[in-house]
């Protein structure tokens, strides 16, 4: 690139505004710096470490990884669990997303609330709820015995199904939300048009709605899969000895044997799988579908390919089959509103999604321990938490770290969002992809990388280390939230304010911020929640004596299950509920 000649210094009195380029650089710089220093650099370190043995280059770590049957089994099992989880989550999530997309606004909000509540309830709390639910004296066993299905408690936990149940339960909201973002953009008139053109309901769904929602299905599957493959909470707590996933090996290698080289090799392998999945996805569907835009079809002249014709035939068959089945039932007169079977299915699913955590709450007040049904009422578990310096210091730390993370993420993310929405520049897509890196990269890799880096610069066990780590994963969500707020903001209002004599700063303060304020607070609360729930980074970098709430909970859960933990989980759950309600109210007031 040719050098750009430096502009002559203007006289000081008429300060010339910064050039567009340097202003844009300045806006993106903090985030770029953050991600390069605390995401890319540590990951690159891990990459190098994985090829080291002693002082020289070696492939020994990979040889060990690929040459040991145990590790290969773990990898296959990890893939199996992730694939099964993905399939179940997408199939169960589709009707929910579909229902939400066709409901009128008021009802939509109600269902969406339960989905968001599940989405933001930490994985740890939900895994813990399942432990109580599936235990020997848990609700499920008691129910089976009451119904006479079994005489003695059955071992429901510590097996493959328990892990998959927990993970599907954990990732269903993600599947629903991802699919919903595509379905919301499908014009409702299209299925109506199909109907006026002679298509029966089954045919209209399979030939029109389903193909249009398919990008949502694939991107939902992608998101669920890449998240599932990095899980360790569920296999560790709900799985048996055999249900070990790849991230657990990393934890074991670091915490127990400090074998950095080998742990890095596992991390690199994990990352490679994730990247491979993304590349394959991009080839097959196109990554642009992730943002909710429908993939731009290339104007292929001539006939459709063989695959699309087979697909079309299958959809036509499904359409006929559905219509035949629908035809078996008498037609209801009231055609308006959602079909009743769908409503029923979604209601049951929402109940299943929410109940485990809700059932845990009464147990935290019970004197009978974690056995179902709860007996007696006591506040002693809560009393113990508040009397315990360990829990209270963990709580304080979580609040401080969460608050600082939210502030920092907002300060760093907001300028980037402005740049993405308002800025005229090349390479926006690249910048967005860069911003989303922390979402794509399994948190485990980031955590191990940060641990290694922090160990060298003395940030292990400090709040600052945690805040930086949490900011890295929270920033993309802040950017996305603020971007969506800015997209809905009419920039002509700014021009109007300035034409009426307001300076840019006053425009921002008096016009822009009051309007986008609620959205900004939402972004703040999201960032806070992410930090408040975060376990993986805290697991490594918080050190022995300075745990956060999730870390403390994790440590205790791994040792023993006690009603005290139910009380802690209940507190965490109620706290997040309060935040979600707050965001909901804010958004409603804004509208």
């Amino acid at each position, binding site marked *: 690139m040719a050098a750009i000649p430096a502009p002559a210094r203007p006289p000081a009195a008429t300060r010339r505004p910064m050039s567009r380029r340097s202003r844009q650089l300045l806006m993106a710089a903090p985030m770029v710096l953050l991600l390069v220093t605390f995401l890319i650099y540590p990951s690159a370190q891990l990459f190098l470490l994985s090829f080291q043995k002693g002082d020289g280059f070696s492939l020994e770590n990979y040889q060990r990884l690929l040459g040991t049957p145990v590790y290969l089994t773990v990898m296959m099992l990890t893939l199996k669990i992730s694939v099964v989880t993905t399939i179940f989550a997408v199939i169960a999530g589709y009707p929910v997303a579909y229902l939400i997309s066709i409901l009128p606004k008021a009802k939509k909000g109600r269902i969406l609330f339960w989905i968001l509540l599940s989405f933001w309830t930490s994985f740890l709390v939900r895994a813990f709820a399942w432990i109580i639910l599936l235990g020997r004296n848990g609700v499920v066993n008691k129910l089976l015995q009451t119904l006479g299905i079994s005489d003695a408690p059955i071992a429901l936990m510590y097996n493959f199904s328990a892990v998959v149940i927990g993970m599907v339960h954990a990732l269903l909201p993600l599947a629903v939300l991802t699919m919903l973002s595509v379905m919301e953009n499908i*014009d409702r*008139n*299209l299925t*109506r*048009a*199909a*109907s*006026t*053109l*002679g*298509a*029966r*309901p089954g*045919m209209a769904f399979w*030939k*029109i709605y389903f*193909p*249009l929602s398919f990008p949502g299905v694939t991107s939902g599957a992608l998101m669920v899969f890449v998240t599932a493959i990095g899980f360790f909470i569920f296999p560790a707590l709900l799985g048996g000895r055999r249900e070990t996933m790849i991230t657990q090996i990393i934890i074991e290698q670091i915490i127990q044997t400090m074998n950095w080289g080998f742990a890095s090799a596992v991390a690199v392998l994990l990352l490679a799988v994730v990247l491979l999945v993304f590349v394959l996805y991009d080839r097959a569907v196109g990554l642009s579908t992730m943002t909710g835009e*429908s993939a*731009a*079809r290339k*104007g*292929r*002249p*001539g006939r459709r390919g063989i695959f699309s014709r087979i697909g079309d035939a299958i959809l036509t068959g499904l359409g006929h089959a559905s219509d035949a089945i629908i035809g078996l039932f008498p*037609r209801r*007169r*009231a*055609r*308006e509103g959602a079909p009743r079977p769908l409503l029923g299915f979604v209601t049951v699913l929402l109940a299943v999604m929410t109940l485990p955590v809700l059932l845990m709450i009464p147990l935290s007040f019970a004197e009978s321990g974690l056995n179902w049904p709860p007996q007696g009422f006591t506040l002693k578990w809560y009393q113990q938490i508040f009397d315990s310096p360990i829990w209270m210091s963990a709580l304080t730390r979580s609040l401080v770290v969460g608050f600082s993370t939210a502030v920092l993420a907002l300060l760093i993310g907001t300028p980037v969002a402005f740049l993405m929405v308002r800025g005229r520049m090349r390479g926006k897509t690249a910048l967005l992809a860069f911003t989303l890196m922390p979402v794509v990269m399994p948190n485990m890799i980031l955590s191990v990388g940060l641990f290694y880096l922090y160990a060298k610069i003395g940030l292990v066990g400090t709040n600052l280390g945690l805040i930086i780590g949490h900011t890295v994963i929270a920033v993309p969500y802040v950017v996305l939230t603020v971007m969506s707020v800015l997209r809905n903001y009419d920039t002509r209002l700014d021009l109007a304010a300035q034409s009426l004599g307001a300076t840019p700063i006053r425009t921002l303060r008096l016009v822009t911020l009051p309007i986008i304020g609620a959205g900004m607070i939402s972004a703040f609360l999201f960032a806070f929640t992410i930090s408040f729930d975060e376990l993986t980074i805290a697991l490594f970098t918080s050190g022995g004596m300075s745990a956060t709430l999730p870390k403390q909970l994790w440590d205790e859960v791994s040792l023993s299950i006690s009603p005290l933990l139910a009380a802690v989980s209940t507190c965490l759950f109620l706290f997040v509920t309060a935040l979600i309600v707050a965001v909901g109210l804010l958004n409603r007031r804004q509208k």
Partner: protein
Amino acid sequence: MSTLETQGLGKVYGDFVALAPTDLKVEKGEFLTLLGPSGSGKTTLLSLIAGLAEADSGRILMNDRDVTYAAPYQRDIGMMFQNYALFPHMTIAENIAFPLKMRGTPAAEIRRLVQEALDMVRLPHIADRFPKELSGGQQQRVALARCTIYRPSVILMDEPLGALDKKLRDQMQFEILRIHKEIGGTIVYVTHDQEEAMTMSDRICLMNGGRIAQLGSPADLYFRPQSLFVADFLGEANLLEGRLVSGADGEGVVRLGDASEIRVTLPRPLGQGAAVKVMLRPQNIRLEDTPGEGLNARLRSWSVTGASTKFFLEAPALASDPLIATRATAMSARAPEPGRDYRLSFDPRDAVAIPADEAA
């Protein structure tokens, strides 16, 4: 024989009466327009006919078959949506072929008919493109081809030209009329644009507040409005206040505010002494330079609006609002002088008495 008939058809949303019980007959081959402001019930009526909403009362008959509760795909209709509703994942040919496929038409026949339809809307070479690659006007034509290719007995159009610019609109109006003539179907057309309704329709069904305000030919509605709403909605109208002195056989005499009496047309019989407003279209008022017997008004201002020149006149005794008269713009005309008094003259056939107390 009527192709489409509604009997006492009504729709209520909670407390809101979207459509009061409505009787309407559409003849075979007719172009009927549902015209009205937003919220007047025209779109509700269309949705009920299409089967996209369900009636709370009354019946819908198509070719004498009761289809009140039939699903859209069981009715013999075609519908053109406001935003076209072309299927984005299908090519143009696939879009147009869709209704035929749903009806099990053989593939070879489909190919022939699709090409024919594309020729008819003058887009013969775009079969393999996707909707996104077409301009608004082209999408419009494709939507038209798609909803007419299977020759449904009723074609419903929901403000189909709303999204097009003025010039394209005029062009498409003409196009729709041409195709209507070619295929000879019955069309029910919704619009809020009175000019469009006047240009295209055999009959206009003007709606207001969930009911039919007046149903008739464009000329009927324009020259013989039966209510103030109709007079006001279609074109500009001057309304002079007065009382009916006498009236019979569609003619009458009205005493105006300045005590002068004029001869008027009575579209419907009114009782003697009834409060009326006399509607005069601006182009039907002649301005006589010589004041004298009759109605006088003072010129306040005037402006050239293009083909016609508008005069704004004051006559407090006749009407509270300023009166408007128009005249064809011409260089040869003498420049009028604001502040001068003019005498207003008109043909009694152009002065229509409308009951004044009728709400809306």
